[in-house]
């Protein structure tokens, strides 16, 4: 039978909650009793969150414009709301926002019971942030998760509307219809960032390109919400023109989202090249990763978030 949700404290004191595919690393800052209460709130809420989602799994795996009914679960509703802006123009299921929606829900359970200076819930790279007016988070961006070194940091301040960060791309844990190595989005919630990152990563694409290998999603995961849609499994060495073209289509999609105020900013990565859309408060060495000085410096880029 099922494993139950597990709770543990990481050696550095952060809270680690995991249950099935959900893996949360949580940290709250503030008065000791407030932090304790927030962690207790997170644990209480976490206990049933996966069960709630699984009860409506067939529903939330359906394309968002064809939902038979409104889901009952609050997390599922967050997911539906996050993908709603996109569902008339493209294929998208509420699952595109599941990680972000879980992060938002747990964060809200924490801030509902405690007044914190700041807090984050990191659900495998999709992060919900709580920030007081003067608080600040520095979100580190790493180009290779297996060789973690910061190539840049994005400052998120309490004054900005950003409360969510998410990354999508074919090299990540979920499938992608596009070829972006990673698209990182900053938005006003983690669910909104999650959905938008999926959409923009799908848009970074070269349809029909011979160097891009794709297979139907069901061949990899029989119960994938993407059905027999082709998902990217390998990308060969692309020419500069191809990279330029793919990033340009992605950028156009991201630009629209910024103009419609659905997201604050996005960073798009493909084969060592990057594009920034909107006001991405990234400092320092990030530009180096974006524009390699020579062809030889080009390398695959993953974006991962490390909160500092």
């Amino acid at each position, binding site marked *: *039978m*099922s*494993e*139950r*949700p*597990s*709770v*543990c*404290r990481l*050696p550095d004191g952060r809270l680690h909650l995991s*249950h*099935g*595919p959900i*893996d949360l690393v949580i940290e709250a800052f503030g008065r000791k009793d407030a932090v*304790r209460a927030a962690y*207790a709130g997170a*644990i*209480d809420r*976490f*206990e049933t969150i*996966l*069960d709630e989602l*699984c009860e409506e*799994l067939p529903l939330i795996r359906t394309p968002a414009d064809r939902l038979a009914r409104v889901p009952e679960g609050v997390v599922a509703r967050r997911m539906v709301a996050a993908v709603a802006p996109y569902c008339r123009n493209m294929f998208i299921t509420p699952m595109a926002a599941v990680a972000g929606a879980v992060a938002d829900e747990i964060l809200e359970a924490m801030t509902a019971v405690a007044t914190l200076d700041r807090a984050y819930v990191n659900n495998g790279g999709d992060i919900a942030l709580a920030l007081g007016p003067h608080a600040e988070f520095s979100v580190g961006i790493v180009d290779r998760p*297996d060789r973690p070194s910061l190539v840049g940091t994005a400052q998120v301040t309490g004054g900005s509307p950003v409360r969510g960060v998410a990354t999508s791309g074919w090299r990540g*844990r979920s499938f992608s219809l596009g070829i972006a190595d990673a698209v990182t989005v900053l938005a006003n919630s983690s669910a909104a960032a999650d959905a938008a990152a999926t959409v923009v990563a799908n848009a970074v694409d070269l349809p029909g390109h011979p160097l891009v290998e794709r297979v139907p999603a069901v*061949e*990899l*995961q*029989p*119960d994938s919400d993407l059905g027999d849609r082709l998902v990217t499994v390998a990308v060969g060495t692309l020419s500069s023109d191809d990279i330029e073209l793919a990033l340009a289509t992605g950028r156009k999609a991201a630009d629209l989202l910024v103009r419609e105020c659905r997201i604050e900013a996005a960073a798009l990565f493909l084969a060592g090249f990057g594009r920034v859309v909107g006001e991405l408060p990234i400092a320092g060495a990030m530009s180096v990763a974006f524009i390699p000085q020579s062809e030889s410096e080009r390398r695959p880029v993953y974006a991962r978030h490390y909160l500092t």
Partner: protein
Amino acid sequence: MSEIRDKIRCDACPVLCYIKDGMTGACDRYANRGGELVRVDPHLLLDRTLAQGGPVVPFRKRDEWDGDLVADQPRFVTAIGAGTTYPDYKPAPFIIATKLNGIDMVTVVTEGIFSYCGVKVKIDTDRHVGPECAIVRAQGEPVGHVTTGEYGSQMLSLGGVNHLTHGGKKEGRVTCETLLDLCNGKPVELSIDNGVTVVVHAGEPPIVNGEVEQRMRVGCGSATIGMFAQQWFGKVDDVVVVDDHITGVLSEHQAGKVLGVTETGIRIRGRKSTPGRYFHVAEPGIGWGGTNLADPLTIVEGFDPAKAWPGLRLFMVSTTGEHSAYYVLDEALRPVEAELPPELVASVARVRENCEPALSTVLFMGGAGGSLRAGVTENPVRLTRSVKDMLTRVTSGGAPVYIWPGGGITFMVDVTRLPENAFGYVPTPALVAPIEFTMTLEDYAALGGHVDHIRPVESLRPDYGQTVGPSEENPWPLEPSSPGRRRQR
């Protein structure tokens, strides 16, 4: 259809993914390897090579590996991070075969979820921490009680099913958190009703009401008299060893009599037990010798004028040597404090030297008598019998355990002998503790084990899990006869 055949349904979580051969489920933690559901996230292995100074294979992902180098290393798979299959009608997550000196050994590895569990805490202090049965609290919530004291130590019994699941929700959560922190070697502050506040940290000195306890008492007051009478004889006329349990008086004590110490006519408050031994000289507290005394003369009612004499030298000391005082009787036979003579300073130092370092020690205690056994064998009671017959060795994270006699498999383990952060918890609330059962293949088959689920230890990829060296004080878990070396403190 082949497509149906090559995928399996994972029931490790409610998502119930279909997983194709060679792929992982949505969690990336469970995978389908040749039609078998396996768990692939880090899991702790004890590697004997590390302890024996052999070549170390670093824990890292490698594209290619030299299977030989790893396969020869004695390796013990602990249950830490193994996960569980609760309620365990399914075989335990790992059933591992190893060859030891030519004999096939099997270790069944699982993490147990213990809602019936707790810790026994031994606090080396003479100080009164609270009355017996007093409630022990953490964060204001009741998490256990003061139980019967042991020689030189106060004992707490914490956790248990009543605090974990039968009390309030907060009580359960705080109890679980307290147990988890204590088991994972973190300091925990506990307050005792009508008693003290004590910081318990396994393997570290207790902190009682903010003061770090340095030493255990050498013995009760009477025992102290017995130990040091000869050294005091001739240097002083009478000695009172102040102790909340039994206060000793040299001139009346059997040890003094044997040495021929003259009667001094000293009169001590409290209830006389046998000559020179007094119960209840004061109230328990955190003063002299675990009493509430700040001034030891409080317990001296006076001196019999027929026996005492002016100039009589009286030495008073506590059982730990932390407190001492020296008095000389004046003309009216009243004790007047004087400077401690050098030979008695040395004797106080000797008392102190004989007191061992005070520690808090924590034993985890849990009952593995429930369904967990079904993950090991189809007929659970046979595992219990096999453990009782000493055919099956039980370890917890590779550390030796004490199995309580009687029914079930109720075990105790010193939490400092497990690798770091070996314990976890589930929000039930209950503790998750590692438990391994090791026996010969022959015995495993005999008790109806899940023999078809045994896999050789070599089948664990070299980059599987996290490898640590075994604690040198623990016997190697696969060799029941090898003695461990206790750490010298």
